[in-house]
């Protein structure tokens, strides 16, 4: 599930219903995603990329270009990275720069999902802790991806531990032991084929995806690796907040 964009959409839905609001939202999206210095510049007039204001573009052309991008150029396809509401708003805004006085502002597409913006208290705090960049590689998102944030080393979280004690005691039967060149290491095997063994080396964070020939590695069941050893940057209250976040967003 593309949680991130749905959640963004949810916020946008609440905020934007009339044209001035939509255009304001569109301008905000534009300034963060399109006006970025090396691209179109403020109001689509001042950047390195082609000028967008006063070009006589119609809304359908703008919508198509924004969603699909332009192949073989730096113009990306925003269809996958912006929410429906943000897409609609930014297209309407660029249309307004091209003299379209009454752009379509109806948001089509999926209805809003559960809102991260609506997360409050511990769950909201837990969301920030989960991917807290101040913790560098000591954060959950070094190995777990939720809502498009994080590196999907581990399989998606399907079951949330009941409490912090359970989180620390988490059993990780998938983690095995790989021996390579006389060194044993905790490993998460990704694939074993005739020519290659691909595994994450969990010796230290961040995990390293390694590709070796089957003849050079030995794999063994089980490992001394423990989940509790990689969550040490968080205290008890922080872990508890992270669990609140997981309970709010992980659907069994």
């Amino acid at each position: 599930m593309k949680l991130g964009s749905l959640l963004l959409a949810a916020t946008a839905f609440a905020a934007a219903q009339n044209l001035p609001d939509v255009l304001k939202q569109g301008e905000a999206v534009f300034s963060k995603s399109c006006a970025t210095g090396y691209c179109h510049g403020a109001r689509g007039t001042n950047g390195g990329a082609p000028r967008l204001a006063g070009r006589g573009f119609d809304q359908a052309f703008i919508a198509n270009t924004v969603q699909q991008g332009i192949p073989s150029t730096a113009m990306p396809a925003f269809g996958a990275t912006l929410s429906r509401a943000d897409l609609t708003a930014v297209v309407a805004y660029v249309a307004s720069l091209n003299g379209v006085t009454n752009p379509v502002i109806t948001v089509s597409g999926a209805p809003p999902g559960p809102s991260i913006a609506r997360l409050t208290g511990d769950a909201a705090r837990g969301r920030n802790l989960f991917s807290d960049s101040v913790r560098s590689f000591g954060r959950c998102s070094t190995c777990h991806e939720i809502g498009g944030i994080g590196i999907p080393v581990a399989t998606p979280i399907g079951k949330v531990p009941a409490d912090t004690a359970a989180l620390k005691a988490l059993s990780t039967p998938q983690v095995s032991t790989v021996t390579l060149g006389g060194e044993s290491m905790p490993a998460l095997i990704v694939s074993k084929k005739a020519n290659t063994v691909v595994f994450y080396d969990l010796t230290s964070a961040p995990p390293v995806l390694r590709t070796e020939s089957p003849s050079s590695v030995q794999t063994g069941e089980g490992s001394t690796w423990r989940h509790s050893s990689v969550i040490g940057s968080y205290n008890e209250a922080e872990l508890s907040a992270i669990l609140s976040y997981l309970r709010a967003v992980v659907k069994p």
Partner: protein
Amino acid sequence: MRIPALLFLALLPLSAQDAGVTRADWPHYGGTQFSWRYSALDQINTSNVKNLLPAWIFQTGDYTEYLGSTPIVADGVMYLISASARVFALDAAKGTVIWQYRYPTPRAGIAGSHSDFIQNRGVAVSDGKVIFGTRDNFLVALDQKTGKELWKVSVDDPKQCGCNNLAAPLIVKDKVIVGGNGGDQAHRGYLTAFYTKTGRLAWRWYVVPGPGEKGNETWKGDSWRYGGGAPWLTGSFDPDLNLVYWGTGNAAADFYDTDRVTAGASKTRDVNLYTASVVALDADTGKLRWHFQEVPDDQWDYDSSYEVLLMDRQIKGQMRKILVHMNKSGLTFVLDRATGEFISSFNVPELSNWISGVTEDGKLVGRNEPEMGKTKNFCPSTAGAKSWNSTAYSPRTGFLYVPAMELCMDITPNDTKATEGRFYMNGDFPTRLPPNRSTYSHVDAWDPITGKKIWSVPYKYVLLASMLATGGDLVFTGDPEGNFFALDARTGDKLWSFQTGAGHRGASISYSVNGRQYIAVTTGFQQTVVGSAVIGLFPEESFRAGSTLVVFALPEASR
């Protein structure tokens, strides 16, 4: 006084000489870890360069953008990476493909962040591996013999940080060190070292110190969290001092400092550490040994992330271990590389209005800053008095060769608040052509010790490719119109030129195989970022994209 070259060579200790020059191989991004981009090869020289002809041409087939990487050559094999990370091992004498590797197209990151820009500045080769960064911010190691992937590690999450690493990694003994893009987003820059053998983390050093660390007090409130400083190019290494040198990026937000600098704070030195600085780190631990901040409270995007040239030179009768470092503003600093002590500075561009000068102890005076609610014109532009393409240094002439630009910009600041990973420059900064000029760049030769410009060759448009200096007393670079040319290193006289068919935004190198010297140049002009800004300035021209390597040598009969 011009010191005769022979006498000059005699004065140089052998170690620095060896550490700075390349011969048959081109082992590192900057030639060697001293970053001179100087080849001692002299088969091609001022008297015969006119006979230079293409020996072979290689098209990468990756025409989405441009070819901006610096090739590596080791034992007759060239390692080349294209903009969207296709990696090739080529027979360096013939151009035939030994192996090729294609990095899968990554998922989109944050719109408008660096993940949208398709580029790569080079691979590093060491320990039997070819190592490079990716748009989705992994560091990948391939088997040097086969091109098969050996390890891959995530440097950071691009969907959160808006950052990635596309500069050539720096090899330092058993480690590979990478910085990262991201200074234009709300991001806190760092350098990260991994072991070449396993891909495991060795150390990470944050440019912006966290709470409790020295330097954090130079940041207002929580602004350190997204303080920028991303060191987005490639550093240098001195094995004798065991120090890694790197230039760091500007403070973020760029053009608006109210959220990061306490009102009324002195801006003489050490504001928003360690942004816009040259830093020296212990190569084994990543611990900071010294710093020199070049642009305290950088409000012009004059970040200091450019190459750091290490050399030993006579200064006032004493042999000194120095470094020479130019930042985007064109201000070039000469520092003692053991201590970070300021020795001297000189200013490369003709147009410069952001400060009135530099004191004898290296402090900026007469700051002319952007102002909220106003649009002000500044020179140079954010494209720099030089862009990220490198200078070169010849130990034979003692000169630094600089592709300098004369561009300005209009800065209009805004006070947008930081959102992690999102664009955070806080201003509009369109590039402007300065009035009353007919040329907008020049290749210069500078004596870094006296700070004197020795010669200067003007060019109509802007030069955006790296320099190469050789033992044949030649200096090579290319222009956006497609000309690749050689100048006399002592006089600047143009001795040879060849139309390669696409603009130059990459680098040239020299190497030899079986006694034959080659000059290789990447061609294909950048269509985004600085490239697009430049294209917009000269609408009458088309600075063509492409992705082709052209390799020159003297005809067999004439050498």
